[in-house]
């Protein structure tokens, strides 16, 4: 197995066995989208119209909620030292690590978003569009959360710092991903454009964020 694959597999395995894996973010996401209608009110039109945006927003929050674990534990148990001294480039390693953990913990979100969309009265096609947009958004969301997590590694109450750093950077992904679902619901052909833009932001983040994460890790270790 290549080193890249080894890191990806290890981080996915650790995320799965360590903190309950996908259960945390999934439960948070599910709670948010179940509670929201109680606050918004029972009007079916209102719920269907608010559904896609609400789903995107709740997904972002559940990524943030699990971001503290991304680099905090590795900092305190010495793993980050070893990663920084490993023969594989640190940026590539951080990419594999963040995506491995992210995908192992966040894969239920698109599935829940699809079911949640239907539950809110959004037709199947725009619900699928929303789920696809969320799936496309996950790499960007988790890498931005990872960047904030690396900057805040070893800081007490790092959750607050992570939210402050990551939330503004997540704005474009949120707009495009929720936009895809919303435009799909309104029958607007811009849904596909929004989906492609979400994908573009994710790819851009995959290309750039690892360098930022590696620099953040190095500065936290020094």
């Amino acid at each position, binding site marked *: 197995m290549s080193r890249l694959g080894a890191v990806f597999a290890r981080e996915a395995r650790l995320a799965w066995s360590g903190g309950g894996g996908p259960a945390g973010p999934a439960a948070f996401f599910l709670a948010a989208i179940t509670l929201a209608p109680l606050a918004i009110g029972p009007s079916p039109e209102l719920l269907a119209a608010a559904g896609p945006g609400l789903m995107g927003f709740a997904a972002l929050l559940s990524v943030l909620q699990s971001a503290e674990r991304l680099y905090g534990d590795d900092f*305190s*148990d*010495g793993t980050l*030292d070893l990663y920084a*001294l*490993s*023969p*594989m480039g640190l940026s590539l390693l951080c990419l594999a690590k963040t995506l491995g953990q992210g995908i192992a913990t966040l894969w239920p979100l698109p599935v829940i978003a699809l079911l949640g969309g239907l539950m809110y009265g959004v037709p199947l096609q725009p619900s699928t569009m929303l789920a696809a947009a969320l799936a496309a958004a996950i790499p960007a969301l988790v890498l931005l959360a990872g960047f904030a997590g690396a900057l805040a590694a070893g800081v007490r109450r790092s959750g607050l710092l992570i939210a402050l750093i990551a939330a503004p950077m997540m704005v474009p992904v949120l707009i495009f991903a929720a936009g895809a679902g919303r435009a799909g619901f309104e029958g607007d052909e811009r849904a596909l454009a929004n989906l492609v833009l979400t994908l573009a932001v994710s790819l851009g983040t995959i290309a750039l964020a690892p360098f930022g994460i590696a620099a953040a890790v190095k500065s936290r270790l020094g």
Partner: protein
Amino acid sequence: MLAMTTALAEFPSLVALSPQTLEATGLSLSRGGLRLVERLDLALAPSGALLLVGPNGTGKTTLLRALAGLVRPDAGAVAIGDQPAGQVAADTLGWLGHADGLKPNETLRHALRFWADMHGTPRTAILPLMRVMGIEALIDRPAGQLSRGQQRRAGLVRVALANRPLWLLDEPAGPLDGAGRDRLAELVAWHRSRGGGVIAATHQTLDWPGAAMLDLGMYR
């Protein structure tokens, strides 16, 4: 001497090391605004061993981290071979920090396999090295269920698996019992017999033959 040869026979045969020298010149280090080390020179030849001693807070850990390129020194430079340490550290260093780098939910089998793969060492070397450190029976235990001393032994197995010429060890014997210290001495002797060098920060008396001693208390 005879006993030593039999002991050495139990070690796995790994790809030969390419011995490296480590040299620090004019190193000044501080931590939290406090100057710890002032214009320090040190050198380690292949097969050499250097023990860093001194009271708590004299900068042993900071010095090790600077030698590994993890901390940037205020002044001076560290060279491995004829290259700056920061550039070649990843290919030449085996690192054991004050934390062992183990995950509480990961079994030693999974952890050590991962590190063997990362360093391109055959997985067949894992068991012999665990046997050397006396922890082969714990291979399927999650690290979180091990005692501090057992975790330290596992960390040392990981260092040996990296198969790198320079070992930097921060308190390698700290939580080890008497038998563990003997096993550590054997592991280090094996490493040095292959041309590898060791620098260890320690409070324990480690009687490694021919080890030089550097007292950081002097630099205060």
